[in-house]
């Protein structure tokens, strides 16, 4: 403590009991007062300071009023004092005690809203401060930018500065903050900070321990629960803050460790090596990743397993990163789509290509289970390429020929090609709980494009079924990860054996072959929105018979009473009939199927031929209703299939 007593002027005033002392400049640990004048008047007094500086902050025209002042044996005691000119202490009551013999000072500040600070300025550079339930809102008085955060809570603890050593132990209770919209807020925070620092050669070497034990923080869009502890040490100088070692523990992660260098100008993270050890994906992904990446679908994803991660930051930017997955699993929409357990590592480096590998022990879509497979991955800056891979499913496989995923300006985009080793329809239909069919499914897709908005497939999906084939081209799924995935395709089928088809779907018995075209098919949530469908007998020479049951079903599609005509005629005595041609078209628009028969278009009320008879006995099936509600038609088909018992012949 140094006294720079520039001028001491003893001024015998008109009132002998009054005394004015021009102290000039006063300097204590961390405090400097210039133009200081002390005025004493019996039991009271005041101190005027032209310029006061404490810890780098400056106030002008400060006046300290002491209504109860005692001067005794080199001690100055000032009780119940108030201070003007320091807005931060406007509502505070002060007690000051100063000893000229020990050169120590004690200042107690009591704030009107509660909270007390006791500061002891000792000899040398020693400062002790004890804080008791100091409202955090007071911080806004020192830092006006904080005012909009509506800080809550109190801080208690102690700070000791002795020469080159600083120790602090602070407890926060009932802490909180909120911005006006409530999108960045905290409530009921309880925590403590222990800080120790030693100053040497103009730099502070520090160690800190922080424990956050209660309360929560919402930082849009992430909610962070308590239970976080942090230990760190490093060096702070005028240029940078170095964190030499850091260890953080939090719910859902064993530990985060690392080091970092922060440039104080900015401030900017210049260098860092961070490692995440054994993060529980079931906790971390819903808490951090999904709210940021897919908030609308956050509840649709289930995640399990563990992950380790490392991040290298150099020269102010990300240099390298690596993600290691251990038994990770992802499920979308309940169990409709599941991947996992998935293990392996995915590295990334700013400058070089890196190779990674993922072992996928399970991939399930609906009821289709893929057998385990491995993906070899090359990560070259922003592009992930998957090496050719074989994904076995049932008795065949999907072969990924090429697949690359790359970041775009706004999103990501995948491109590639794949084909299928034939899967037997018998195994596929069994796996999907469909009526069992013979045949094979294969695909050749030379052009696959995947973006978050669209999956496009150039090429063809081919089903060899019912002695013919079905080919789907122009396949496109719009918003595949959205609430309502939409499928578009053009489907053609040739030479489907009606005998196998009708037997499979229990629709009576029809012999012969049909060709089918389903143009401009659009589906949402697996329900058709629109298409233009035509079914025609395949040209050629082959036996064509249709059973009475099949006729019943076809006519039943036109309405409940349509089949009655057969049963009233002599035709009821025949089990099957010859036919020359079958033809039906349906253009689905806005839930209504607009039908045409073999003749093509016609007036709304004109009957149309669905089955043209031939041979003996011959039978024509005529449709009368060209507009049929799609939902009703589906219900009738289901009813017809369900009731495929022998018709009652009356």
């Amino acid at each position, binding site marked *: 403590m140094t006294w720079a007593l520039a001028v001491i002027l003893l001024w015998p005033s008109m009132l002998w009991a009054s005394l004015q002392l021009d102290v000039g400049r006063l300097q204590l640990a961390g405090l400097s007062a210039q133009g200081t004048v002390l005025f004493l008047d019996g039991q009271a007094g005041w101190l005027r300071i032209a310029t006061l500086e404490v810890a780098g902050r400056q106030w002008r025209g400060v006046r300290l009023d002491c209504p109860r002042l005692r001067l005794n044996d080199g001690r100055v005691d000032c009780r119940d004092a108030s201070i003007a000119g320091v807005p931060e202490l406007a509502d505070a009551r002060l007690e000051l005690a100063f000893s000229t013999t020990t050169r120590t000072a004690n200042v107690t500040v009591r704030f009107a809203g509660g909270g007390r600070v006791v500061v002891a300025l000792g000899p040398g550079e020693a400062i002790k401060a004890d804080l008791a339930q100091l409202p955090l809102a007071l911080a806004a008085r020192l830092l006006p930018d904080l005012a909009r955060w509506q800080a809550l809570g109190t801080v208690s603890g102690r700070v000791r500065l002795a020469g080159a050593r600083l120790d602090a132990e602070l407890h926060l209770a009932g802490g909180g903050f909120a911005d006006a919209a409530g999108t960045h807020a905290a409530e009921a925070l309880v925590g403590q900070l222990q800080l120790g620092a030693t100053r040497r050669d103009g730099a502070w070497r520090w160690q800190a321990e922080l424990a956050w034990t209660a309360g929560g923080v*919402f930082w849009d869009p992430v909610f962070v629960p308590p239970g976080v502890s942090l230990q760190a040490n490093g060096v702070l100088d005028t240029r940078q803050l170095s964190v030499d070692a850091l260890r953080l523990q939090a719910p859902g992660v064993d530990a985060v460790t690392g080091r970092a260098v922060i440039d104080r100008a900015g401030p900017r993270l210049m260098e860092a090596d961070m490692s995440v050890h054994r993060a529980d994906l079931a906790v971390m992904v819903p808490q951090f990743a999904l709210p940021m990446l897919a908030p609308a679908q956050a509840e649709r994803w289930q995640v399990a397993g563990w992950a380790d991660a490392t991040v290298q930051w150099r020269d102010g930017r990300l240099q390298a990163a690596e993600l290691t997955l251990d038994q990770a699993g992802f499920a979308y929409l309940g169990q409709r789509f599941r991947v996992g357990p998935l293990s392996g590592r995915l590295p990334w480096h700013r400058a070089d290509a890196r190779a990674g590998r993922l072992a996928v022990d399970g991939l399930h879509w609906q009821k289709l289970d893929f057998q385990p497979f491995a993906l070899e991955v090359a990560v070259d800056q922003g592009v992930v390429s998957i090496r050719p891979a074989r994904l076995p499913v049932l008795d065949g496989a999907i072969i990924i020929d090429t697949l690359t995923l790359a970041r775009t300006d706004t999103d990501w985009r995948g491109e590639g090609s794949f084909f299928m080793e034939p899967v037997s329809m018998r195994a596929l239909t069994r796996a999907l709980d469909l009526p069992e069919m013979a045949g094979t499914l294969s695909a050749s897709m030379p052009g696959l494009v995947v973006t978050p908005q669209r999956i496009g497939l150039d090429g063809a999906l081919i089903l060899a079924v019912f002695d013919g084939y079905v080919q789907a081209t122009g396949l496109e799924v719009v918003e595949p990860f959205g609430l309502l995935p939409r499928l578009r395709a053009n489907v053609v089928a040739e030479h489907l054996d009606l005998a196998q088809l009708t037997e499979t779907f229990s629709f009576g018995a029809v012999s012969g072959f049909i060709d089918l075209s389903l143009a401009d098919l659009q589906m949402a949530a697996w329900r058709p*929105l629109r298409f233009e469908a035509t079914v025609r007998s395949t040209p050629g020479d082959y036996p064509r018979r249709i059973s009475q049951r099949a006729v019943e079903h076809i006519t039943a599609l036109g309405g409940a009473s349509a089949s009655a005509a057969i049963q009233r005629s002599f035709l009821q005595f025949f089990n099957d009939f010859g036919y020359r041609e079958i033809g039906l078209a349906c253009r689905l628009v806005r839930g209504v199927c607009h039908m045409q028969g073999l003749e093509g278009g016609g007036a709304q009320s004109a009957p149309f031929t669905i089955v043209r008879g031939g041979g003996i006995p011959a039978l024509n099936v005529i449709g009368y209703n060209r507009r049929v509600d799609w939902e009703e038609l589906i219900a009738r088909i289901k009813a017809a299939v369900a009731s495929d018992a022998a018709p009652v012949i009356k």
Partner: protein
Amino acid sequence: MNIQWKAALVVALLSATLAQAQSNLEVNTPAISAVKSSMAQRHAQLAPLYASGAVGLKADGSLAIHDANAVPLAQRGKLNALVAAENNDRSALYREIAAANGHPEWADDIRRTFAQRWIDKAPAGWWVESHGGWARK
């Protein structure tokens, strides 16, 4: 005003909006039914949020968080998710109605029409956004 009553009101509002709108807004397709059903299910969760002012109706036919302070801190992430999911559905609804009319390019007009109707029909006490900013009806 209890929550159930409000939920019923808004479901009715949705139907009334569709029913009273021009004929091309009445169109129904499987996709539109799916979206409407998803919105109706979500409404029970949204109704108290409209009433408390946490969520408001925007002039562009979407929802926005008006005052997250009205929701407990730990629920605010869920609030975000609800608003995002509802806005996804609403965009899908406008798009599907336009598509069902055979005019995908009408989606923006349909969105504006709905936006105005949502705001007109909102009960007193709800927050709505106009060109002048947020206001309580």
